């Protein structure tokens, strides 16, 4: 396990994912993400970005190959191990996945309740992170009372609130305007600077070009470009 951490917090080894009706979503994908690294995942719609991320938080298991996240292994991981791992991850889902019958702050606080954080500490943490994403004013609104971008920011806040060691974000700025995108991205940079590894699927190539982080480009379920291997940037 310590050896695994030395080589990367997240590691895919020849991972293939096949869906019953639609065939290969990923084909022999291998890569690793080092501790504290920031990785962009790009590629056309349907390339397999979300599939990689779902495998990374064990919402799915690979058809073949091995996924390892912080010592948890896709071949042997128990339900309990997966639950424990997820408490240390921050996940932003492409479709937000907010609880419809809880307010914005309850949705964010929920990620802390699950990990057993004492009630007294939850309130301040939630306020802080909602302020960071610019949603302090909407704390008591329910998801249906929020605009698309506001919902997305609640989802980001929830992923950040438990100080994850890896942040997995699936198009976290898809519903945000340029300014909000810059704000959220700035926040992710700060978190990354503090040591959190970030793996972020995005189709905002402007962001990718300007940020100059490592980029993995997917196409039809295969990695077609990895900026860590060929040093010239995509643009």
């Amino acid at each position, binding site marked *: 396990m310590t050896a695994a951490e030395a080589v990367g917090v997240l590691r895919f080894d020849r991972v293939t994912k096949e869906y019953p009706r639609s065939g290969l979503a990923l084909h022999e994908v291998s890569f690793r993400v080092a501790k504290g690294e920031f990785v962009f995942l790009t590629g056309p719609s349907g390339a397999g970005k979300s599939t990689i991320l779902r495998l990374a*938080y064990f*919402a799915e298991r690979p058809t073949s190959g091995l996924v390892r996240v912080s010592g948890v292994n896709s071949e042997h991981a128990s*339900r*309990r191990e997966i*639950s*424990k*791992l*997820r*408490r*240390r*991850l921050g*996940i932003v*889902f492409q479709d937000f*996945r*907010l*609880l*419809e*019958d809880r307010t914005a702050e309850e949705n964010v606080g*929920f*990620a802390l*309740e*699950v*990990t057993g954080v004492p*009630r007294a500490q939850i309130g301040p943490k939630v306020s802080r992170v909602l302020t960071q994403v610019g949603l302090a004013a909407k704390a008591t609104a329910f998801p249906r009372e929020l605009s698309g971008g506001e919902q997305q920011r609640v989802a980001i806040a*929830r992923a950040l609130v438990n100080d994850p060691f890896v942040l997995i974000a699936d198009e976290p700025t898809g519903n945000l305007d340029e300014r909000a995108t810059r704000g959220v991205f700035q926040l992710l940079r700060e978190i990354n600077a503090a040591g959190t590894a970030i793996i972020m699927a995005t189709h905002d190539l402007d962001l990718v070009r300007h940020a100059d982080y490592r980029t993995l480009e997917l196409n039809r379920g295969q990695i077609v470009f990895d900026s860590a291997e060929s040093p010239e940037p995509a643009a």
Partner: protein
Amino acid sequence: MRRTVRDASAAFTRAPLLTALSITTIAFSLFAFGLFGLVALNIRAALQGVEERVEIRAFVADGTDAQSLAAAAGDIDAFPEVQSVNIVTQDQALARARTELTEFSDVFQSGVLPASIDVKLKPGYRDPATVARVSARLKSYPFVDDVRYGEDWLVQLYRLRNIAGVAGLALGLAFAAVAVIIIGATIRMAVLSRADEISIMRLVGATDGFIRRPFLLEGFAKGILGGLLALGLTWLGMHLIDRYMHFHTVFFSPAMAAAGVVAGALIGVLGSSVAVGRHLRAL
């Protein structure tokens, strides 16, 4: 724990319809069950009253002296099956016939009825076989002319009791089966209606136990409420029958009533547990 209670009670306000449905279903099933139980209980009570009247009557030859009668009565009283023995003289027999058969009371003016030794059996010995056995022994006394105990009637009584028991049990089980199906479906739907919530919980790292707990408490609360409601309905039903039928009925003992409520709680908890468990394993 606080979260569990809060989440469980939130379920009541968030899905009032489903909650009401679950409680009503549990209550309805237990109520139907309770009504059948009460009918069975009352049939049993009624049969017990009838059974107490099981009596063997040994008619005695005219002119038997009182002393040998008394001696025989003493013997008979010592039989292990016998509860009480009673000597009925000819005069007493006539008086009794007059009151019991008023329609024919005119008739008995001229008639003469035989004296008899009337034997009552202990509870548990009132079945047809024992009665026949005791009758045979009575018949062996030389001065006994004839022994009567209403064979047909007794056999019928026992048959009725067996039938009532079997029919009650069969119908009760049928009702219970249907009730379990309905309750199971209701709870499963309660879980499915929160499938999104459960999957989100799992994705942010909640363990199975953490997810399961509020559901179990919710099931428990619904079960208890359903059980109490059923008890209230049954009591009301009984009370109305009592009142408008002027027919005294037996109600459940406190222990049986409590058992009914506990059964509701068990149904609730077990149903929830199975439904959530199945759902979690499928994730």
